[in-house]
């Protein structure tokens, strides 16, 4: 699965971020190559969500560099549009637009952002919706769907912007237990199709199944980064061991 020669999709160098006086990210370094799947885990407050939010500029960082497809992310946001063009993002709380139908949610970005004809956008949207298994709900409104369905719509919506990289920010944390697997299945199939992914999640089964690397963060630092097998069977640090014993 590992392709060490593939070009770097995301490169994070010495990233530092503060919320006020609070030092959330401390000298974080991470390189994700095209086609790689990273799972980021760690206790809450360890900075893992902040890390991926920095990648597509939902948060501003103060020190260090982030490169997406070799392009430097400007801190003042001047190339924000260019950076975000290739990055899809899925949120913990779905963040679907409640006043638009499922289909309209999906075609918003293609029509207004990519300036695609509406018909083509709808066609693509329907493909992605059927890929996540809710093409029959396309005319409904988000709040008429279950949590699991909403999150699948959110994934389809992100896919409609033809991203090369997908970021998942705890996509299953807000879901009832019985709905988690339907979302994970979609994510697995996405991973198998070769999408570059960074997933912040505590779903260790998912990590074992698809991840190329598991990154464990604590107190704003990457404590260890290893292949899943090694990480689960042979964690190098006491903190990772503790975390695993809590979560497994």
């Amino acid at each position, binding site marked *: 699965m590992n392709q060490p020669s593939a070009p770097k999709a995301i490169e994070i160098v010495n990233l530092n971020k*503060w919320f006020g*006086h609070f*030092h959330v990210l*401390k000298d974080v370094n991470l390189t994700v190559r095209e086609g790689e799947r990273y799972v980021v885990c760690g206790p809450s407050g360890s900075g893992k969500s902040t890390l991926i939010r920095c990648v597509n500029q939902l948060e501003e960082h103060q020190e260090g560099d982030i490169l997406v497809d070799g392009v430097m992310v400007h801190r003042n946001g001047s190339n924000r549009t260019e950076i975000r063009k290739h990055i899809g993002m899925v949120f913990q709380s779905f963040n679907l637009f409640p006043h638009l139908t499922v289909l309209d949610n999906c075609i918003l970005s293609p029509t207004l952002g990519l300036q695609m004809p509406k018909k083509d956008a709808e066609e693509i949207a329907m493909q992605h919706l059927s890929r996540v298994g809710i093409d029959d709900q396309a005319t409904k409104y988000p709040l008429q769907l279950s949590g699991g369905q909403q999150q699948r719509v959110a994934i389809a919506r992100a896919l409609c912007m033809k991203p090369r990289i997908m970021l998942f920010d705890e996509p299953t944390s807000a879901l009832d237990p019985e709905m988690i697997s339907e979302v994970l299945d979609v994510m697995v199939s996405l991973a198998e199709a070769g999408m570059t992914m960074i997933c912040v999640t505590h779903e260790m089964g998912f990590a074992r199944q698809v991840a190329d690397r598991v990154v464990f963060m604590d107190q704003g*630092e990457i404590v260890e980064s290893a292949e899943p097998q090694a990480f689960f069977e*042979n964690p190098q*640090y*006491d903190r990772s*061991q503790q975390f695993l014993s809590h979560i497994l």
Partner: protein
Amino acid sequence: MSANVETFSPKPSRPAPADTVGIIGWLRANLFKDVSNALMTILGAYLIYVVIAAVLEWAVFNAVWDAENRRECLELVGRSGACWPGVVAWFDNLIYGLYPKDQVWRINIAFLILIAWLVPLWMPKVSSKIAVGLSATLIYPFLASYFFLGGSKGIIWTVLIAAGVSGFVWVWATALCETLRGKPITAQIIAWLKLDTAEESKQRTAIRLVGLGLLVASSILVSVWSLEEVRTNFWGGLFLTLVISGFGITFSLPAGILLALGRRSHMPAISLLCTAFIELFRSVPLITILFMFNTMLPLFLPPGIETNSLARAIVAVCLFASAYMAEVVRGGLQALPNGQYEAAASLGLGYWQTTSQVIMPQALKIMIPSIVGNFIGLFKDTTLVSIIGLFDMMNMARAVGEDTTWLGLLFEPFFTVTLIYFFFCFAMSSYSIRLEKRLSEGRDRN
């Protein structure tokens, strides 16, 4: 798992870059983020400077503090400074209206009693706060009315005033007993009478007798107590404003609760009547209701009964306020989850038990901010009584300018009255915002 585990020692946090925290960071984030932001800061600062400078210059630096009449003020500074001596001369009237100067102490005493009555609400160890609050709204008005109005009193009137006096005694007896001894006053009385071991019915009779004794004693006291009559057409100023809004608030809360319950009732006739009342009073302006009662109330009452314009205004304000309060209460009732009704029903509680024990206490808590908001509205609305000729604070302010000594003095009394209103309303709204925050914190924690 392998044994050779390393211990993770987190790096120490570094201080944030200097330009993102502290005063500089705050200034950058809030006042000088970019060019347009900085321009707005300058514009805002200029605006504040102009307004504050103009007000200070007029009200303080150029103001006249000592003068015999308006002409003197005008000769000294013209219109560029305030003429405060006029307001000082009329200040008592702005507060008490035309109430006789030698009787003003009665108003002050009555308000002090009210404050004393309410003090137990802020005493941490007092547990019968609801009873204290209820007594203040239901019994205190009788006592206050006599202080304000005075004059001759019949038997019924005497007993009602005596109830006010006994209520006050009871409130403080309760407060002291619960604070010092940590038990209700009734238990204390039983203990004093050495009836601890007696049966319950006997204890209850004893308590009733003590209560009756208190009432009789205060009735005797009240019947020998007499105050000179001050007719309502002498009432005015802030005092009148507080009396009218006090009546409105006292009446509107229970009436609003009943109307709201009626509107939500399953009985069509009752719900229709309540809805009609609420919608009618809410869709017309207060001034039309004041006019209506001013002209129609004498027609409605049997020939021979006279009403004064204060009474008519109070009736109008009370009904108007109840309709608005009803909608506030209805909002609070709707906000309660259905589960609460179902839970109460599953316990086999009847309608009134469910409402008074389960629903209302929760709903009232949710509603407190909107109730306070309603009170603020009511307080501001009392200015309207000036249109039907009562001398509330605003009309008093207008009267300053019609006094020959201070002829044309308008800005200064209006400024003063505005400040007084602002003080009251702002205090109430800040209190309600603080309360809302505290309540929502409580909810979030649960």
